[in-house]
């Protein structure tokens, strides 16, 4: 009898262990795999931003370059042609060709939407890996647009300066790319929601190429961000991320 019980307990333990080992990645592993897809050191992107506010629809096109902590965005649509953003580390400058004016964007201005969009300067300035900024926890699973996802909840890691204290991420179980993201204030208020509407395989990695950001503090507003072309690890000319290049 004793032997039987022992065997039974062992069997249960083994089965539990096996399911855990087979099915479950830890939250950390999921985020690491996501970072492996979405994080890049160097990239060149052709993109389009569609800002929708009520019935108003504004389209802006841009070419952007990113390398580590530095970034350069050059607007190419007729209205904003020549307008440039330069990010160097934690600093951001903007250049307006018509006024030939260079403006440093700092402090509170970073919280504003870029050119009236739902993306704030701060949103695009965080270039670190998610795993370095947040402590993630696996809180469930759900299907998004027919694709099974892990739901992860990240809380700002101690001592890290992040814009959003808490974020909820839906990560594709197979492709390991974020399909939905909810951003919360420390008070618990939902600030922004980003839905990824199209994912594409680029250079052997899955990358979100179409997404919609909604500022939840404002009604009837959303911004679509569509990547037309993306190249990872391109050759970026030296001097791209300098103030001289901005003028």
């Amino acid at each position, binding site marked *: 009898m004793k032997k039987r019980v022992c065997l039974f307990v062992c069997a249960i333990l083994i089965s539990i262990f096996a399911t855990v080992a087979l099915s479950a990645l830890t939250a950390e592993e999921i985020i690491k795999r996501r970072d492996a897809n979405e994080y890049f050191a160097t990239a060149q992107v052709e993109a389009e931003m569609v800002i929708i506010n009520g019935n108003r629809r504004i389209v802006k096109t841009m070419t952007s370059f990113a390398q580590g902590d530095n970034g350069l965005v050059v607007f190419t649509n007729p209205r904003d042609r020549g307008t440039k953003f330069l990010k160097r580390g934690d600093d951001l400058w903007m250049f307006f060709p018509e006024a030939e004016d260079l403006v440093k964007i*700092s*402090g509170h201005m970073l919280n504003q939407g870029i050119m009236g969009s739902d993306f704030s300067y701060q949103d695009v300035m965080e270039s670190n890996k998610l795993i370095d900024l947040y402590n993630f926890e696996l809180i469930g699973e759900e299907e998004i647009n027919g694709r099974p996802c892990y739901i992860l909840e990240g809380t700002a890691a101690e001592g890290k300066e*992040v814009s*959003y204290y808490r974020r909820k991420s839906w990560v594709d179980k197979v492709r390991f790319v974020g399909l939905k993201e909810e951003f919360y*204030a*420390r*008070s618990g208020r939902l600030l922004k929601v980003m839905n990824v509407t199209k994912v594409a395989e680029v250079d052997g990695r899955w990358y979100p190429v179409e997404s919609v950001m909604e500022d939840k*503090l404002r009604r*009837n507003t959303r911004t679509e961000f569509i990547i037309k072309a993306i190249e990872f690890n391109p050759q970026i000319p030296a001097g791209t991320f300098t103030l001289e290049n901005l003028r």
Partner: protein
Amino acid sequence: MLFLTRLALKNLARHRNRTVITSIIIAFAVLMYILYDSLIGGMSEMSYATIIDYEAGHLQVVTEEYWQAEKEEEELPLEHLLTFDDRLQKEIRQLEGFLAAAPELNFLARLNNGVDELPVLGKGIDPEAFGSVFAMQNQFVEGSMFAPGESRAVMGKRLADLMELGVGDYITLLVKDKEGTFNTIEAEIAGLVHTSNPNVNQNIVYLPLALAGKGLNVDEQVSKVIIRLENKETAAKSAAGLESRVKKIDNRLAVYPWHELEAITFIDAAELEKQVIFAIILLIGAIAIINTVILAALERMGEIGMMKALGLQNKEVVFTFVLESTGIGIIGGIAGILLGTVSVALLAKFGVDFGAMAGMDITTFGLPIIGKIYGVWNPAGFVRVFSFVVLTSLLASILPAYWAADKDPVKTIYHR
């Protein structure tokens, strides 16, 4: 000499019309100067009062780093804050001429009404202390001040109108807390104010200190302590005295009097413009005086010739003329001062309502004036303008008098 003086006085009486007309012109210039000086003084006082009464108080206790950061970077840091504890409170209360002290926590926020967002200045305040330092109580156009601990807010009527908000509506303030993380502060609008301070009307949202402190994650720290004194003129002295004592509590602390604030130096910068206008008024007066004196000299060529023929020396002729002209200056100056005294007395008592004259609220243009402007007494201005007209009359007459006195008496008598 006495003879010449008497002659000059007789001349003044003889040419009564000329004396009266010139005196009137001089009196008018003096009156204009005094009125302008009084009103400008009134406006400066009012500007000081709007800043002191709604934003600055008389003294500010703040850490030196915060003061610098606020001044140079035009940011409102959540670092370098201070703790308004019992010890500091006690020290401040012992200050001579102390009336009240109010802590405030300043921060930048984005005011959100669900549709639009606007950058605003948030202020966490203790409503009771705030009421005794600032003149906000009687400026409510709707609702009232919140109580401590409530989740309610007060803002300018103009800001509320712009955001289409009213009393009872809920607002969300999007802020960055001390760690740089987004946070939201939600509050119901308790009251709307309309003051003579455009900044308060358009840019500021007041919240209970505890609510703001929690939203910004700064524990119980505050940005500044604002102190109201019995007399604003003693601020500089009190600041120095208090600073040495608060430094013993926390050596980062400093005390700044109201006139060191940027907004005040901004008002003072307009001083140059005022001086230019004063100069123009005085120039008009001077031209009137010079013109009359020259004409008088030309007109009286014959008389001068006669005086010389009777044996008067050049310098005696000049003396008579200068004395006469100075006499006109003194008469005009005294008349102007008398008129000015009456006008300033009226201005100081009844004031003028430029807003009503223009038919609109002039705070719209950013002028910190609501209601009437009252004149102020400036004795130094009286003395200054009187000395100026007398001196101008004196100096202006010297050259024409010399010129006339220098002529050959025969030629001047028969110059026709």
